[in-house]
């Protein structure tokens, strides 16, 4: 099929907000969603009556979905969406809301991801994650995502010659980026030595390859250029997006994700290439997935991701500023909000509203999401290219 995709004209993304994370929270996801709405109001001036679109993503709001949240938060939207896609939900919320606004089904859409992390809630949410996991993953040592990604990492390292030092470089760079982010949960210096000598969790995954589950919320607004201008809201335009689920189902191990299927569509629609990107925000639950996105999105030459990592600096003022808030590895993984962090941080950098240090002259951000280990791999992938609106 060669049908050309319509550009995202008449759409602006604005008001990235982050509700400061906490390692554990006694409050439910609804509280975190409420805080996110309040932060959106503070950033935009929009109240409950102004939002006519609502998109919600959460793992811990049960038994409620986006439906329950409308009543809970006093919203009367004419467009509603609930995304169960975790780490890919930010980009997916963005592209769904964008089409709704573009087509006039909604004018002002709040995209919200909120999750709590109560003591022991991680174990509970793991135990009921998916049917395939219950049938065919948990019975094998119940290592959780650590074990699943250990298997992928083991195969990926052998296939592409990536070493633990290479993954360590990514993790160390992200931690260095987190130093200037006052909201990051982990800001202690991480050295490559400390990374290498950390204890094994599920070989070859070691302690500093793993994110820290926490409570938090992320949100942004999708609206029209007219409304944004009227309110004086700095915003970004969407150059391109892609989304794919259950890509390459016959690959025996996930050595590539859905990005590899849709990379031409992404850069073709954006009209630019990877070298034009000023900052890259990728889903980083395990560095092997960071490497996979760098490779599949075309930043590294095919099969040469190890060389690319070795020859590139990923700091905020580096060659390719990567996960500039520290990523989930340092900022924390607040459930589904972990899949929104890439969007809010990418937006902040190009809108010049950074939490910490600003990427110099950032205009274009590439954002990539990855979510939902249903069985042996992440099923959902998505990516977007955003450009600051002049």
């Amino acid at each position: 099929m060669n049908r050309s995709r319509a550009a995202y004209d008449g759409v602006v993304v604005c008001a990235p907000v982050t509700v400061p994370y906490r390692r554990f929270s006694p409050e439910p996801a609804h509280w975190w969603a409420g805080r996110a709405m309040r932060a959106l109001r503070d950033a935009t001036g929009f109240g409950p009556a102004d939002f006519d679109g609502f998109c919600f993503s959460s793992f811990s709001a049960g038994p409620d979905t986006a439906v329950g949240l409308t009543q809970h938060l006093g919203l009367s939207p004419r467009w509603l969406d609930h995304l169960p896609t975790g780490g890919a939900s930010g980009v997916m919320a963005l592209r769904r809301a964008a089409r709704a606004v573009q087509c006039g089904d909604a004018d002002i859409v709040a995209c919200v991801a909120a999750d709590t992390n109560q003591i022991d809630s991680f174990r509970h949410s793991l135990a009921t994650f998916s049917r395939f996991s219950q049938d065919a993953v948990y019975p094998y040592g119940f290592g959780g995502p650590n074990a699943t990604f250990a298997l992928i990492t083991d195969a990926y390292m052998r296939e592409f010659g990536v070493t633990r030092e290479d993954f360590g470089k990514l993790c160390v760079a992200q931690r260095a980026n987190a130093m200037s982010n006052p909201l990051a949960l982990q800001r202690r210096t991480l050295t490559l030595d400390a990374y290498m000598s950390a204890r094994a969790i599920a070989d070859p995954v070691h302690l500093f390859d793993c994110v820290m589950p926490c409570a938090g919320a992320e949100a942004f607004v999708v609206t029209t250029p007219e409304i944004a201008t009227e309110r004086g809201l700095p915003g970004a335009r969407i150059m391109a997006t892609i989304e794919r689920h259950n890509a390459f189902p016959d690959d025996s191990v996930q050595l590539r994700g859905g990005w590899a299927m849709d990379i031409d569509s992404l850069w073709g629609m954006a009209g630019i290439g990877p070298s034009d990107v000023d900052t890259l925000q990728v889903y980083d639950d395990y560095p092997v997935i960071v490497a996979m996105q760098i490779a599949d999105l075309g930043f590294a030459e095919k099969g040469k991701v190890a060389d690319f990592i070795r020859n590139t600096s990923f700091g905020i003022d580096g060659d390719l500023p990567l996960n500039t808030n520290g990523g989930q590895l340092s900022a924390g993984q607040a459930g589904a909000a972990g899949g929104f962090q890439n969007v809010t941080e990418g937006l902040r950098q190009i809108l010049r509203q950074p939490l910490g240090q600003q990427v110099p002259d950032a205009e274009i951000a590439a954002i990539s999401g990855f979510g939902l280990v249903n069985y042996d791999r992440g099923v959902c992938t998505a990516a977007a290219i955003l450009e600051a609106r002049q």
Partner: protein
Amino acid sequence: MTARAPREKRDPLARKKLCHVSPGQRSRAMHAMAARAAMGRFVLQTCTDCGTATYPPRDACPKCWGELVWSDQDNGATVLCKTMIRVSTDLYFRDHLPWRMGKVTLDAGPVALVHLHDALEAGERAEIRLMLDRGGNAALFALRPGERQAMNDPQWREFVVPVQGRTVLVSDARSAIGRAVVEALHRAGAPLVIAGLPGPAPASDVTDALFGLDGVQAVPLDITDSVSIAEAISKIAGPLDIVINTARHVRGGGVSARGNLVEQRRAMEVSALGLMRLAQACTPLLAGRPSGAFVDVLSAHALSGDSQFAGLAAAEAARFSLLQSFRHEMRAAGVRVLSVFTGPTDDQDHQAVPSPKVAPGRLAAEIVDALANGREQTCVGEIAADAMERWLSDPLLYAREKNL
């Protein structure tokens, strides 16, 4: 009696180590796989339309949305990748860390996560066994090709019932079957076999060479009498790991013609109520053990009525039913309940029955094998295997043709 292996000494008030079981939530399709794993089969779902084999179990073929049926498959595989899990939030696995697992490509097509034998590496060939885990659910275990056992691998031992170093109670050691079982367990390395002897005790018990063996302890035991069971168990100085219920009361006869109510009541007392009494008395001991098991020897007549052995079939059917309930009860405690079906055995009970008959020694060997493989359901001999196959494929037809 001569010196036996030293017994465990325990403070009766000391807090016991809790025995957890592996996580138990499964889909209906996965339970169907477990029902076949119980028989020692290696099965996958295949599509009736396109023939594709699929895993994990689904409710539609992922290639063409055709209907899926279970079929026996080649169990060869190649290891793709591996990990050693060192952290788990699950209480059972926390007790057994580190845990080695990996991913394989099955020769049948799909990929699968598996428990990985400690010597297997990526790229190597493996043979996959479909086992039942401690929670009674289906699980794939990768062994080296041609390897039948891996008793030195602590992970493997979680899927089977080791006999070495364990104390075993045989409920009726006076019958030909019971004697063979005592002897086989003794040979298999059980340091203490308690041989239950229903009364009345003949004088020959005292001089019986089997009961005089080092590591065999004869005790009076009548499973139709709760007090007798309690007394027998009180004589076991230490833990009890495995119970093998060999007791039964085999008599011919129909329902109206040649039906003997006294014999029938006795058959029920032994087969059905006896199982309940024995289970009630032994459960607290088995539940505290790291790999407790209860093995029940059943007549294949349990599957369907038989006009020649109507009373026995009815009593054994009741026993079969109770055993299924008991297995479910024991799942939470991680105690395996194994069924061993047999056709007519070559003993006094079946003098009037023509061949083929199962030699008691063979039955005993199959019991030891069922334990060693953690196999939940075993059919010993051609008659039991044939009965099971017919019953599984068409129980109504089997009930008719069995009595023609």
